[in-house]
């Protein structure tokens, strides 16, 4: 397949059956489990789609004229994906992230030519958001894609991620997605409500609290504008420990080496499978690759020690 830009080489991701993960009782009921493997894009995460859609949106509106620069607070996958697309399109980009974000993530975006501005480590993602806002207010050259409120975020999943699932698996009954900004889950829900209303959308979410900073936690009252949870059949919180266990099980049973948020999504999918109707087909989104998390102990770190080291926000956004 030929493309004019790496940024265009997104989407069309594989749907892989992973029945080996299903407990015997569920398998006996004819339940099938599939992973939508979003880790195979230019940056190895579902954010490849989101980042392209966000930048496309800004370009379409004429907001990225020469002299403008992208600015986004993100220590996670969105930053990496934005850095790839920005490099491919010759758009300068600055990412604001807490100073204690892992070196792999910082090196990745620096290698793509992104500028990093540190925000105070002890203020977490909140601090990054506040600093980015202050920077944008002080200098009009900055334009923010703003994944939390830009409707291009859920729209890209409604228009690309969801239809791919239905095309590959017309018999789909349930789709489980991680809930960070809520863009994926919202987009999936809107598409299926129109095309196959019997499909239930479930979300896996990180636990609120210290490791998931206040700005991000739904329990603490912040709901991203792009999120519409009314369409969801259910939402389940998953802690870091179970996320890691899930990611390890996925890797060892199927060869799909994904990150902790995928582990959480799998955990929810298995919970749904436990109670599902016979012959149900369940899809979960494997949203990012696991290699970024080795330094945090994803592979074989001690779970008790790891929980303190894990940054909940890094996994989900």
């Amino acid at each position, binding site marked *: 397949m030929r493309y*004019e830009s790496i940024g*265009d080489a997104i*989407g*069309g991701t594989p749907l892989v059956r992973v029945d080996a993960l299903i407990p015997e009782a569920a398998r006996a009921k004819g339940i099938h489990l599939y992973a939508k493997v979003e880790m195979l894009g230019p940056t190895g995460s579902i954010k490849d789609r989101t980042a*392209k*859609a966000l930048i*496309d*949106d800004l*370009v*379409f*509106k*004429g*907001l990225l004229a020469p002299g403008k620069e992208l600015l986004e607070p993100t220590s996670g996958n969105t930053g990496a994906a934005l850095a790839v697309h920005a490099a491919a399109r010759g758009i300068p980009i600055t990412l604001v992230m807490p100073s204690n974000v892992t070196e792999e993530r910082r090196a990745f975006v620096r290698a793509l030519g992104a500028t990093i501005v540190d925000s105070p480590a002890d203020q977490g993602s909140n601090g990054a958001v506040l600093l980015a806002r202050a920077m944008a207010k002080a200098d009009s050259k900055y334009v923010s894609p703003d994944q939390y409120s830009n409707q*291009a975020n859920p*729209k*890209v999943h*409604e*228009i*690309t991620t*969801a*239809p791919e699932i*239905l095309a590959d698996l017309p018999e789909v009954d349930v789709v489980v997605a991680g809930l960070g900004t809520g863009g994926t889950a919202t987009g999936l829900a809107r*598409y299926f409500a*129109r*095309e196959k209303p019997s499909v239930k959308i479930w979300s896996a979410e990180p636990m609120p609290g210290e490791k998931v900073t206040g700005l991000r936690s739904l329990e603490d009252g912040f709901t991203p504008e792009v999120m519409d949870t009314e369409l969801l059949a259910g939402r389940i919180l998953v802690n870091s420990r179970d996320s890691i266990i899930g990611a390890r099980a996925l890797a060892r049973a199927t060869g799909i080496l994904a990150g902790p948020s995928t582990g959480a999504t799998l955990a929810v999918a298995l919970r749904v499978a436990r109670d599902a109707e016979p012959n149900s087909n369940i899809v979960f989104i494997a949203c990012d690759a696991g290699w970024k998390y080795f330094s945090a102990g994803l592979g074989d770190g001690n779970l008790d020690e790891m929980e303190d080291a894990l940054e909940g926000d890094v996994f989900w956004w």
Partner: protein
Amino acid sequence: MEISTRWKTRSKAMSSGGSTQRLDSVVGIADRPKRVSISAEIAIAIRAHARGEAPREACGIIIGSAPAASGGAPLRWIPTTNVLASSTLYEIDPAQLLRISLDADDAGESIWGIVHSHVASPAVPSVTDTTVAGYPDALYLLVSLAPSQAAPDGEPGIRAWWIVDQVATEVELVVQA
């Protein structure tokens, strides 16, 4: 094909600081044809182009004897390049647009219809569509690749709209046998 109920969408001004774009339409809505038709050949070609460009939005122009709003007849379909190469946005290649527009004008022909596809949603103009539409006398044809929007024969559904002053009004579309 049944006549759909009137559909209206409104949107705010497109550009930062810009005023709402108002184009004086030559032909009032009430004076326009209540039904428009395209040949089977053109419909087949439009559908094939939409399918072929998926998962990106497809786009193209139908040249006619006069604008659709004035009762012109469609003459030929010209597929174009979507320079945005996006699944949710299109822009007809400006260089192609220039060539097509000048050739039509020189030949005494008109822009009859502007066509694009929605790869996973209904063939209904979005707020993006109604905000940017700049040819009020042209017919806006939308093709949907969403399974639920297929025509009775299973082919991608095509719907037609006037878009004037950022309001979309559906028109009955007949595909000739």
